[in-house]
């Protein structure tokens, strides 16, 4: 039976790859409107954001309100790596062939950096519970954002010079400061010499990688590992007494979630038809709150629920942006200065969340999945 499953997996994987490859080459013909193509890919990336946050907030029963920090780490890392590689490759216009060099390396870097910070942030989860841990994650995300936005160390130096001058802790921190400053501060990072971040990630990369990550999240949930996480969420002391080490499981969940967010951030930064720069304010608290909304609306702990949440939130954000820009709303705003559709959206979301918490705190699907086989059917 295991053998047949393998064949099925490989066939499905090839199918996904083929479809997304075809889309990669033909999407511009099918959807001539660039903003619609962008919307499609953005939705896919946000699905990954939601699915990864669900690993911590849904499955592991921890609560992170700083997911934007991981996304931002991934985005900046991928943007820097991709830009450097782009220069090394001769600064030609991004092609699909070249993307096979740039995207994997940039995403790997994004995953490693975000994962490393996920590890660091997972460590306090051993001692801190609930609210406290949430605050630490928020602190992390804000520190990340503020450091990049406000750093003004040695504006005239280049990072390369500063790093070669490192002689001790003092110069080390100086070099670190110079490097952070080189990320462009409040204006954002747009590659070396502000040439723009090369946008290598087309539908092929975005769809295959998001699909892969979603499948992995599903497998985590429906494995002994996911079961242990559920046990841990219920009773830490009893779990430890049967050999489920809370430390390992919690820290690993943080790392996995951070890796997912980092990859999502990397894809967002290099997304074809997207903006060729990365801004610190994209990763503010509102971004984290949007991610929380995605997970909670769909159902904490449900992979398909998180996906639905990701799609819904992304579409509504974009619909609002579109509406805000329309001439009708522009006319209205001339009479009513207060009409801020985004504020209205946030009010609706938060009211929806409050209502959900009161009426159905487990979210739309709870822990259930769409298309889930009846549990126990295979076991006995």
């Amino acid at each position, binding site marked *: *039976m*295991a053998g047949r*499953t*393998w064949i099925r*997996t490989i066939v499905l994987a090839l199918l996904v790859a083929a479809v997304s490859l075809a889309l990669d080459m033909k999407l511009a013909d099918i959807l001539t409107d660039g903003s619609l193509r962008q919307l499609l890919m953005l939705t896919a990336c946000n699905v990954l954001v939601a699915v990864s946050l669900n690993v911590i907030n849904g499955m592991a029963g921890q609560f992170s309100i700083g997911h934007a920090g991981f996304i931002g780490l991934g985005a900046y890392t991928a943007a820097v790596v991709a830009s450097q590689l782009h220069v090394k490759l001769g600064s030609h216009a991004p092609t699909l062939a070249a993307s096979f060099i740039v995207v994997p390396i940039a995403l790997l870097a994004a995953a490693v950096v975000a994962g490393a910070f996920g590890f660091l942030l997972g460590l306090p989860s051993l001692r801190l519970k609930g609210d406290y841990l949430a605050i630490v994650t928020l602190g992390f995300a804000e520190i990340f954002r503020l450091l990049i936005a406000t750093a003004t160390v040695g504006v005239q130096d280049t990072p390369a010079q500063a790093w070669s001058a490192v002689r001790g802790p003092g110069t080390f921190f100086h070099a670190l400061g110079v490097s952070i400053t080189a990320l462009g501060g409040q204006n954002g990072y747009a590659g070396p010499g502000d040439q723009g971040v090369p946008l290598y990630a087309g539908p092929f990369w975005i769809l295959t990688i998001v699909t892969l990550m979603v499948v*992995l999240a599903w*497998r*985590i949930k429906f*494995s*002994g*590992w996911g*079961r*242990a996480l*559920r*046990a841990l969420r*219920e*009773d830490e*002391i*009893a*779990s*430890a*007494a*049967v*050999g*489920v*080490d*809370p*430390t*390992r499981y919690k820290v*690993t969940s943080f790392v996995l979630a951070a890796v997912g967010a980092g990859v999502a951030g990397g894809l967002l930064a290099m997304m074809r038809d997207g903006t060729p720069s990365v801004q610190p304010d994209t990763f503010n608290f509102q971004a984290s709150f949007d991610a929380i909304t995605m997970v909670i609306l769909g159902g904490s702990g449900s992979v398909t629920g998180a996906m639905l949440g990701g799609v819904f939130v992304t579409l509504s954000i974009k619909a609002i942006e579109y509406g805000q820009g329309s001439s009708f709303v522009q006319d209205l705003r001339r009479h009513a200065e207060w009409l801020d559709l985004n504020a209205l959206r946030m009010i609706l979301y938060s009211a929806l969340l409050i209502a959900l918490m009161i009426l159905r705190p487990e979210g739309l699907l709870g822990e259930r999945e769409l298309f889930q086989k009846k*549990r*126990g059917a295979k*076991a*006995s």
Partner: protein
Amino acid sequence: MTLALKNVRKSFGGLCAVSDVTFTVPERSIFGLIGPNGAGKTTVFNLITGVYPFDTGSITLGGKSLANLKSAAIAEAGIARTFQNIRLFSQLTVLENLLVACELQKRAHLLAALLRSPSHYEDESSMTKRAFEMLDVFSLRELAHAPSTSLSYGNQRRLEIARAMMLSPKVLLLDEPAAGMNYGEAEGLKTQVRWLRDTFNLTVVLVEHNMQVVMGVCEEIHVLDHGETIAHGSPEAIRSHPAVIGAYLGEDTEGGAA
């Protein structure tokens, strides 16, 4: 393997919960740990299983120190336990409760689960098989897919023991297994404890208030009061030990009951 405590001491804030407790549980024995409420029995269990670290002294299993080991590592070393107020994973099914206790024995781990490698499937099916065998031992097979909260009190207690047994422990710590049981059930428990010891080559340590069970099944008994050892010996010796009688019935210091 023998479990040995030597001069173990633990205080919470200023309160000394366990002071200078020393005892050795012989291999394959059934050992009782008794004392009035608040004597520190459960605390001793928590110290053995690493729920809290102890302040001074030593706890060893088969000569190997358990100090500074985390709960999960102690479970891995071969000590399993149940809890005074049952701690099942209530949202999980009966079967799943047992499977969680298999995580340690899996050869393949997270990566295998992500890749769905053959070893992942082998693990899952062999663990499920073992879990069903264990359910048979405790006659819970019919309830395998029921949520564990739906079980009756007695079945929940048995499930908790079954879950502990899934670790294939060398030492089993039972915290008040007879709580809430009537005379007949308590008699059944006695047989079951002996049977577990004989079948699985276990050492069993019991914390228990039910004297019918303690005196009937334990081969050696250690008595605590206010965190201190007041007696140690065979059931017969404990039954007539003046300090034990004093502790249970109240000291004769104020001319009260004695």
